[in-house]
């Protein structure tokens, strides 16, 4: 869902750059308290994993001729918390835009918003469920649902940005554009939800200490943050 260059108006991409820039700055300030020694390598390899996963476009069988790929910010936020996942997603999106021409340079802030800020906040909101001693079916179900919801929210955000930029074709109403984008991204989001549950369960089983961390308050405090 990387927004390419030339589709957002200067006021829109400027606003999004300011919002995402503020979110990143806040994350960097808070991130220090979240970085114990085991989490630096976990953050590094999870960022690399998301870069890799985003290269794998899978066909959406119900919508022929269309593909989707993982967002990943949601799953990063469950494993690392909101601030570190923001730092990791920003790194992925910056490398994609600067080196691989994936996403417009001026649209970087907008792309960080839809693939970083939104899913990172949603992921952090369910992180608390996974910090319990025995995460059960409730954690699976809510994670799946929020993962799917995240892509729908982001897809709606992209359409609103295009609409505000006057880059939607005049033949299409805003409502129809939202409906088309949301339905496709609900399907992609269901894949995101399933993959998130599987990866979180795997990393928790093998790297629980790094996921839990030793610095940040666990449980309710995390949800509030």
């Amino acid at each position, binding site marked *: 869902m*990387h927004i390419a260059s030339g*589709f957002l108006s200067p006021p829109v991409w400027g606003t999004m750059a300011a919002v995402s820039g503020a979110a990143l700055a806040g994350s960097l300030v808070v991130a*220090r308290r979240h970085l114990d020694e085991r989490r*630096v390598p976990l953050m590094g390899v999870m960022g690399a994993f998301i870069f890799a996963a985003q290269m*794998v476009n899978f066909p*959406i069988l119900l919508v022929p001729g269309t593909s989707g790929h993982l967002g990943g910010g949601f799953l990063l936020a469950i494993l690392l918390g909101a601030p570190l996942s923001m730092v990791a997603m920003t790194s992925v999106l910056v490398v994609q835009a600067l080196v691989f021409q994936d996403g417009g340079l001026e649209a970087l802030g907008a792309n960080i918003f839809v693939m970083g800020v939104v899913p990172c906040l949603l992921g952090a909101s369910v992180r608390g469920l996974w910090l319990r001693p025995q995460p059960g079916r409730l954690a699976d179900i809510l994670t799946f649902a929020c993962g799917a919801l995240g892509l729908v929210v982001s897809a709606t955000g*992209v359409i609103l940005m295009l609409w505000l*930029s006057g880059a*939607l074709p005049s033949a299409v109403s805003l409502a129809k554009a939202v409906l088309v984008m949301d339905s496709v991204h609900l399907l992609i989001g269901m894949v995101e939800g399933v993959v998130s549950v599987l990866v979180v369960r795997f990393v928790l089983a093998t790297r629980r200490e790094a996921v839990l961390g030793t610095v940040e308050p666990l449980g309710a405090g995390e949800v509030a943050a």
Partner: protein
Amino acid sequence: MTAYNRRTLIVGVAVAAVIAGVVSYFASSAPDGLEKFQEDQGAAAPAYPTVEAPPIAFQEYNFNGLGEGFWANAVAGVVGIGLVLGILLGVGRLLRRRCPVAPVGDDRAATRP
């Protein structure tokens, strides 16, 4: 570096490298949800001046000079994960160095006088 962290890095990088270097070659080349929407609705052309990074070393996810085959994609994938990993390890180390007090339970705390 502790054995724990070394293992995190080795396993994580191995998994990412296989996905970026090998699996991604077999990915769908169909447009993604946003691109498809823009094509179908006749809004595929940019409405504003475009600002894209120059394709100095890579043409999208293909290494320049290797065409569009398996190896061009594999080099792009491995370089990409290397860049992300390097940035994050660097930022992580910088942020930790600026942290005045070692976090509770930190391995550094045990070695401090």
